[in-house]
């Protein structure tokens, strides 16, 4: 057979062209089997030589970054709200909204939570500037990627924008006032007032009760109070908690000098309602240039605070209102550690004078394992309290106090005594029923 260079070249050209084109055409023939917008693709095998993909049922897990609603919002909160609204419209009651895909810098102009929302919101490695307060409703859990590390853009970071304004003055509210909120949760992120003068509080819970929880959260630069929890007998944060793994600090608080910051305030009307465990708390005022008030203050609320570290506050933990005789009953503080300021330095506006101060109206108080810093300058007092004669006393020296237990105050006709039990060998004697035991 005679050779045909032209034919050879032609066949080669055609086949090479096909070789280049067909794979691309093949990719275009991928089959999507009943996909739902914004949901992860799942491999569904091969049919007719073509790869098949599908998704879970509508509303299962919606990626808010990918999800596009016609005429919808463009900022993170608006897109989350759109995705959540449409997911609920499919009939799903509790949806997972995945907002981890949004890149670092984000703005929020409106609330991310539509009315009636339930489920879980996942946040990613984002620095979110919010104009509005995030009010977490019943049945919603907000989960970040973790607290921000100092000096980096790591984790999930929610701060008040320069346009932030809300009557609550809080960046995040657990439940909204006037509602019977339950099961509202916040986890794994950093909250920051960001120097906005309208932002007073980091997180506020005055409305969410059972199963309302905060865990693994850092609260920065809140000029009035980092975390506020208020309990009354009904319609508030009674039985809420636990509040666990929380850090309150002030790395750059431009509004703090005109306020006297409190790290955490747990307050109420002494109604017998409890705040569930406050656990693993660190409050540091060491970066403040002006004098703060208290690391933690408990007024009129019954609770247990355990495994805490408070530093650089004139009073580490204040139990009761020192300016009045209002009552605070049923507070336990277990395994706490206090220090002045930077090791070896215990002077300046924010030095810690007293680790735990118990006010005159406080009763049924149990303090165990109270520890002061053993390095550098010592605290002035470890514990101060008022005796039955309204005299202020100090116990525990400056380093350790095993236990101090104060009972209720009896009426004057019953002797006016307040039972007291202390491990301090140099402190006041024990007081039992109307009887002072000499040491």
């Amino acid at each position, binding site marked *: *057979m005679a050779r*045909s260079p032209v034919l*050879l070249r032609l*066949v080669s050209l055609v*086949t*090479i062209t*096909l*070789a280049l084109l*067909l*794979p691309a055409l*093949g990719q275009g023939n*991928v089959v999507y089997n009943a996909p739902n917008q914004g949901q992860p*693709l*799942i*491999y*569904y095998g091969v049919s007719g030589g073509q*790869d098949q*993909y*599908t998704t*879970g*049922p509508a509303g*299962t897990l919606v990626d808010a970054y990918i999800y596009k609603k016609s005429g919808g919002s463009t900022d993170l909160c608006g897109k989350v709200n759109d995705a959540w609204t449409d997911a609920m419209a499919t009939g*799903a*009651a*509790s949806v*997972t909204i995945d907002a981890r895909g949004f890149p670092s810098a984000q703005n929020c102009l409106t609330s991310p939570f539509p009315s009636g929302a*339930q*489920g*879980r919101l996942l946040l990613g490695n984002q620095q979110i500037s919010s104009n509005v307060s995030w009010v977490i409703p019943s*049945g919603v859990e907000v989960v970040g990627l973790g607290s921000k590390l100092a000096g980096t853009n790591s984790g999930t970071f929610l701060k008040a924008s320069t346009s932030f304004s809300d009557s609550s003055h809080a960046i995040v509210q657990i439940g909204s006032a006037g509602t019977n909120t339950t*099961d509202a949760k916040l986890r794994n992120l950093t909250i920051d007032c960001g120097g906005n003068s309208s932002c007073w509080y980091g997180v506020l819970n005055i409305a969410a009760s*059972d*199963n309302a*929880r905060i865990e693994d959260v850092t609260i920065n630069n809140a000029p009035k109070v980092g975390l506020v929890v208020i309990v009354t*007998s009904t319609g508030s944060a009674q039985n809420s*908690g*636990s509040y666990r793994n929380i850090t309150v600090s002030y790395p750059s608080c431009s509004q703090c000098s005109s306020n006297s910051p409190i790290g955490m305030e747990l307050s109420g009307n002494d109604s*017998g309602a*409890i705040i569930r*465990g406050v656990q693993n708390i660190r409050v540091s005022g060491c970066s403040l240039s002006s004098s703060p008030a208290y690391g933690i203050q408990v007024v009129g609320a*019954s*609770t*247990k605070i355990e495994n805490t570290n408070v530093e650089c506050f004139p009073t580490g933990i204040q139990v009761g209102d020192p300016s009045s005789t209002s009552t605070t*009953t*049923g*507070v*336990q503080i*277990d395994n706490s550690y206090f220090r002045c300021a930077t090791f070896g330095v215990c002077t300046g506006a924010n030095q810690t004078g007293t680790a735990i101060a118990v006010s005159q109206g406080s*009763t*049924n*108080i149990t303090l165990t394992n109270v520890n002061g810093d053993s390095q550098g300058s010592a605290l002035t007092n470890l514990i101060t309290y008022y005796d039955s004669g309204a005299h202020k006393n100090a116990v525990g020296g400056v380093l350790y106090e095993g236990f101090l*237990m*104060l*009972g*209720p105050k*009896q009426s004057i006709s*019953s002797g006016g005594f307040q*039972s007291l039990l202390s491990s301090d060998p140099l402190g006041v004697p024990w007081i*039992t029923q*109307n009887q002072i035991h000499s040491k």
Partner: protein
Amino acid sequence: MWNHDQRILGIVIIALLLATGQLTQPAQLRAQNAPAQPLIYSSVQGAGTTDTTGTIIDAYVYQNQTGGSTEICTAIASTWAYATSTGIVSPVIDARGFQGVQPNTCTQSPIPSTATGKLLLGNVAISTSATWVVPAGVELIGMGASGTLGDVVNGVPVNTVIQGSGLAAPIISLGATSCGGTCQRQVGAKVRSLTVDCLGVSGCTGIENVVAQEGSTVEDVTIDNAPVYGLHVTVGPASTPAANYSGIYRNITVQYLLCAHCTSTTNGIQVDCSSTSGCPSTLQFDNITASAANLGSGVGLYGFYIKGVSTLLTNSHFENYKVNIQIGDDAAITPTSNVKIENVSLSAGDVLIDTTASDVLIAGLSGPTSSTLLLQDNYHNSSSISGMYLGFYMLGKCNPTSCAGTYPAIVTSDPGTAWQEP
């Protein structure tokens, strides 16, 4: 040597192979597109790829893809069996795609008895006539508990709900007792973020742990309408498989929305010892709520019953049981020692320390009114304390040589109770 036509034919064949991708990506791509696994975009592979076969498998898609059972438990079990058949020891089985009230009742536990890994459940209500056994090394994770929001509202489940269907047994049991042979020691069995509902069926317990030990936890769980126990934990002597060193048990709500067969012996949570000698194993329960408020008068015995086990109970609330917290064997057989209760509020029901309990520390007990009966101590001269608050109450033990005529040490903030030296 090939002739000209053979060379042309060879070029055509090679080009066609290239065109259909047989010499470039498809074989590799298909090998890495594992059934029912999420696609990850890959610039090298083109359209996408998956992780290693068996790593994380969508059970909803897998059952659709393979034409398997539409009953969720069977579908999960089949998915898990497939995943482990690939050589993956601990897969993630994602069953979040099953949504809403499931039409078919589960007749088997979805988790193979020798499985390890994680099972994810979504916004779903599952009816089961078989106990779900969570074996060692398995974590069962839902979308969340229903809490006080209700289990299924207007036909729509709130988060993740597992309901008994005529089930006169535990709905969930931690630890496997039957593994087709000898089970390995049961550790690390975990349940999180879901609701179990007995629907008031007689003989039903919400969650039980009688064999799973350290690392075995129950967290963020609501237990509804359990006529026997909401949560039952049994520890035992060291030689006996039991729930020794298990926990923590945290963020648990026991409640009764509609419980036709709850009785005067219904308990919210019971912690007991399989030996009449008592069990020194320590357990912790934190952030527990048990409410018998919706039960009729005389229904609901103990909110929290501690019998023979050293237990720490913190940050909790109990209401409307005959006795909200019972410390000690009510049959006065098994001794109970080292019980610590802190920051607990009560309503309509007190703490009872029975005659076989000793070494008890209570701090931060509160009730709604000044007349609330907070504590009754049968071990110590049947003394009782009422009020809104009890700051502290510490009870020792009687003289070990003879308890006759002696009382244990007692220190309390209650002004009406005399302190007692040992």
